[in-house]
């Protein structure tokens, strides 16, 4: 079967008079390393919200591995393998990394509604929490409430949580946003180590990161897809330079 990992067909979202997403169609190949770039206000986060089911589209469809998921709520799409991170941290401030990851893992193992047993009593779940904590360098902070973690670690937890759902498709919304220089390395390493079979759509402003990570790039401008292509082609494209890359152009 050759269906794309994730496909948008004619997605359209109107907020009052504002056309936030204007007839966007694109496909994310299996195992893709695809970046979505565009100036501020281009509608990148709205597009992610449409794909993940946080807001319903005015028109259009979302297909996950060939299955139409347009009518499904966000949590059901996650169960089918579509996960995301958020541009602004969406964490559980008073829960610890171990608890937060445990939530995602239990949910995936159909244990999330267990009300008769104490959390932490299923060895399979604990082992997976441990694995994620170690992979993201959070094992020393497993008992630290999330709100007390340094920002860079919160950013790592943001990614770890998305990965804990074992996605087939992962949407990363500016994973390195606001991370201080000295903690940036850890984020880049975490991105590089993401499983190769997971299709990834990266939204990012940092062009170094985009060009080192992505093998395909789409450019979104004013809610429309301007162009999609290989990084070299995008870097050379005059229209892209004009609207987005400006004087910072790479290539």
């Amino acid at each position, binding site marked *: 079967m050759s269906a794309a990992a994730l496909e948008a067909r004619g997605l359209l979202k109107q907020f009052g008079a504002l056309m936030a997403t204007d007839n966007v169609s694109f496909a994310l190949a299996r195992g893709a390393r695809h970046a979505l770039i565009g100036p501020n206000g281009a509608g990148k986060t709205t597009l992610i919200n449409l794909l993940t089911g946080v807001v319903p589209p005015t028109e259009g469809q979302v297909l996950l591995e060939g299955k139409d998921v347009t009518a499904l709520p966000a949590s059901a799409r996650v169960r089918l393998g579509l996960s995301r991170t958020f541009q602004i941290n969406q964490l559980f401030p008073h829960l610890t990394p171990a608890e937060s990851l445990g*939530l995602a893992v239990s949910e995936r193992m159909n244990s999330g509604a267990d009300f008769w047993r*104490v959390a932490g009593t299923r060895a399979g779940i604990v082992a997976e929490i441990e694995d994620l904590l170690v992979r993201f360098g959070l094992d020393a902070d497993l008992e630290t409430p999330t709100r007390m973690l340094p920002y860079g670690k919160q950013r790592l937890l943001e990614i770890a949580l998305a990965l804990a759902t074992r996605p087939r498709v992962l949407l990363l919304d500016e994973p390195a946003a606001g991370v201080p220089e000295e903690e940036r390395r850890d984020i880049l390493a975490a991105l590089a180590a993401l499983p190769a079979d997971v299709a990834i759509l990266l939204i990012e402003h940092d062009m170094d990161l985009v060009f080192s990570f992505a093998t395909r790039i789409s450019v979104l401008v004013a809610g429309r897809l301007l162009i999609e292509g290989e990084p070299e082609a995008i870097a050379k494209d005059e229209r892209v330079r004009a609207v987005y890359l400006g004087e910072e152009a790479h290539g």
Partner: protein
Amino acid sequence: MTAEATAAIEAHLRRREKWRWPEIAFWVAVLIAIFLIPSRDALINEILIAGLFALSLDLILGLAGIVSLGQAAFFGIGAYAAAILASAGLNDPIFGLFVAAAIAAGLGFVTAPLLLRGSDLTRLMVTLGVALMLGELANRNAWLTGGADGLNFTVGKLLGLFPLGFTGQRNAALYSFVVLFILFAIARRLAQSPFGLALAAIRENRLRAGALGIATGRRIVAVYTVSAAYAGAAGALLAQTTQIASLDLFDFHRSADVMLMVIIGGAGWLYGGLVGAAAFIVLRDVISAATPEYWEFWIGALLVILVLTGRERIRDALARLWPRAATRSLRGGTA
């Protein structure tokens, strides 16, 4: 991966499982009070029932962050269910308690979907509205509820042995104590379970909870149903131990009082409801003995002080005085 790391994670996740000595001391102290001050057994019974009622609100407010001003709907329906059963001759208290809790749970289950949309204000109004409607239904259906006269009835002996009511106030207090303890232990386990953790996630960040695959709506319906059952059980206990059911059970002030109790004691900490209920009722008893018309002034003052100073600050101050126990041990029930 190391065995120590695995053990550390497991120990961390299970850190609240064991009953610690301040918790045990708390329950033993209540039991001793029932035997030691029999003249106060009616008051203790009232506190225990209010504590269970407050626990029911803490399940939704403290654990899941769902506000409600209509908890009296479930309290009232539980009380009337027990009263009507007893009036009809089915007067075994434990049977009545189960039926009352089940009926209240049913009402909770069907009204819970109303809470899934909108803001906290929406939820306050929806829950308030449901309680008002139910109170009015009870008023209009006097053939069933006795209308403004209420219902007077006799309940059977507990387990066929122990009379409740005015001749058996200690029995009544013990009955409420046992029911409260069992339901508290269940709530405590629930709060520590993956389900309870998911409720904490919904309270802390519903968007992210959904993004982890948690069906947030279903979890809220589930905990609201449990909460309604608890409130119904509290109502049934009150009806059975006083052998009266009257329309004021549905009153707005009951929903508001129980909210005050949870806020005074601290939401999200299962003992908060119990502590708040005890503080509220003891204060009312003490102050109203001195100045009958004035006691709400002091409750109001206490509320303002608590909300403005912030309970965390008060708890932190206590924790400094009494380092280990106050913060760690007593937080037995939080998720």
